[in-house]
């Protein structure tokens, strides 16, 4: 939902935004949809500075969910660049600001992984496994974190 002011501000501050339109840019759409394997609209790809996909959002989402997904992608970009502390901070922001969205349990999972990647200390994984015992119990991410308890 692009008209949402929070989404507009976050996108303009965080990314170089580009658009290919299925009808108005038909040739460009065909070329880039093949290159990035994105045949459906709407699809949003978040690419790192070298053009490598780090996150994909397919289909319409209400504003809160879209913003949470964009934040998740921004956090994954930091994770992909091994900026572990920044990645953890960004993942935890999603859980705090948008706890009801589908992005939140995924963010909680990766917020536990980032400090482990930084230190090799499994304490953050164990803590995340315990956190999933109390919230998002029905999510796929709780199942994935269940081995950490």
């Amino acid at each position, binding site marked *: 939902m*692009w008209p949402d*002011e929070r*989404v*507009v*501000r976050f*996108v*303009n501050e*965080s*990314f*170089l*935004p*580009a*658009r*290919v*339109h*299925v*009808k*108005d*840019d038909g040739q*460009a*759409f065909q070329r*880039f*949809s093949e290159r*990035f394997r*994105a045949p*459906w*609209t*709407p*699809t*949003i*790809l*978040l*690419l*790192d*500075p*070298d*053009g490598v996909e*780090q996150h994909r959002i397919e289909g319409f989402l209400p504003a809160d969910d879209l913003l949470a997904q*964009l934040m998740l992608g*921004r956090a994954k*970009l930091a994770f992909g660049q091994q900026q572990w502390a920044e990645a953890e901070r960004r993942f935890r922001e999603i859980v705090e600001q948008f706890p009801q969205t589908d992005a939140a349990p995924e963010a909680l999972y990766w917020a536990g992984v980032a400090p482990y990647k930084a230190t090799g200390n499994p304490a953050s994984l164990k803590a995340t496994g315990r956190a999933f015992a109390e919230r998002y119990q029905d999510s796929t991410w709780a199942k994935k974190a269940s081995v950490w308890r």
Partner: protein
Amino acid sequence: MPINFRHDVDQVLEDAKAQRKPVLLDFSAAPM
């Protein structure tokens, strides 16, 4: 305030590399 979408995707990808900034690439069917 609108999103500053650009349509020259090849140039955006080049600029991202030079500026070390991530890209949001929107495949859209929304009315322009």
